[in-house]
């Protein structure tokens, strides 16, 4: 009896974690707020370097941001890239938005919500 309970608890736990990571329907409001930060010149200003659907006058200093969910199945990997790309890529030219506090942690979460929809 006990081992079975444990097992089902475990299943419950892992599946809910899985759901948290990938299946919670994203909140439209968060996506819109993230998009506003990404596009604002004085906040993310991501268009300076990346072509992004819905944004104008983009640079090509960095790659176009698309197929993000396919390329970053784990939300945490995408967040880490934006927080500080130099962790994986020492010669990166991408500004470390988290490490250098260019954006707040909350703003980065919103940015990731939006970017993950691309």
């Amino acid at each position: 009896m006990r081992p079975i309970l444990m097992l089902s608890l475990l299943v419950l736990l892992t599946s809910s974690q899985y759901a948290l990571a990938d299946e919670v329907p994203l909140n439209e409001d968060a996506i819109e707020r993230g998009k506003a930060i990404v596009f604002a010149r004085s906040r993310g200003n991501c268009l300076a370097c990346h072509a992004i659907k819905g944004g104008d006058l983009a640079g090509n200093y960095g790659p176009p941001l698309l197929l993000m969910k396919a390329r970053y199945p784990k939300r945490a990997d995408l967040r880490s890239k934006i927080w500080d790309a130099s962790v994986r890529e020492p010669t990166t030219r991408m500004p470390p938005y988290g490490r250098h506090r260019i954006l707040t942690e909350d703003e980065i979460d919103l940015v990731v919500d939006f970017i993950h929809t691309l």
Partner: protein
Amino acid sequence: MKKSILSLCLIGGIFSVLPAVAGPEEDRLAMVKYYSDRFPDVPMQEFANGLYAFDQSAREQWIEMEDFPPYEIAIDDGQVLFETPFANGKSYADCFDNGGIGVKQDYPYFDADAGEVVTLELAINQCREANGEKALAYMIGELAEIAAYMAYTSRGNEFAIQVPLDSPGAVAAYSAGKQFFYTRRGQLNFACSSCHIQSAGLNLRADRLSTTLGQATHWPVYRSKWGEIGTIQKRFAECNSQVWAKPLEAQSVEYRNLEYFLSYISNGLELNGPASRR
């Protein structure tokens, strides 16, 4: 990115096309090779025209602007200032080789006695002070106009910056300038090389990024955005500010060393200043 280039990366996260241990001439040749590989259709002298070397539509506007060059007044005003004697009767011509005509290709140089890099702008103020005149402000105004006239008389001369290998001071100043160039700074965490080497030819928003090779040949520059003529160190300050780094003072030791490095890299290109940029 090509493999051969990647393999030249320095440790510490800064991308470099330069061999880790090398003299100025090895550095210059490595830059020439890197940009020739990256822009195979651009003739060498064209790099002296900055982004207009490869941005066709910007180039067309620039050529049109050159019909009535916006820096022309600065050359004329600079000539008048240059030829007007100081209160003591002497003039700028007395301070420079060849009366100050056609000498810009030799600046900056390393003054071994003073133990520092002397840029053309610094030399102009040293001349003034030696003759009892007040120093002028460094980024814009009369000093930039005098430099514009001196640059104009040097057009067509090949950049010939000297970093004597038997002068430890000169080599150290050059190396400090090189290091500044490859050091990340500012909240946005860029080195000069992030933009002008790794990203040369790419767009930051609407700005196509120029190559390090040729960046020093054409100063001072009349920039439409400034609405006036300014010196190269004004541009250094602007490039520092835009990555949210605190710019240094014009003619600080660091900026003079940086200008020494940057100018050496353009050795062999013909001077083409003053110039216009948008």
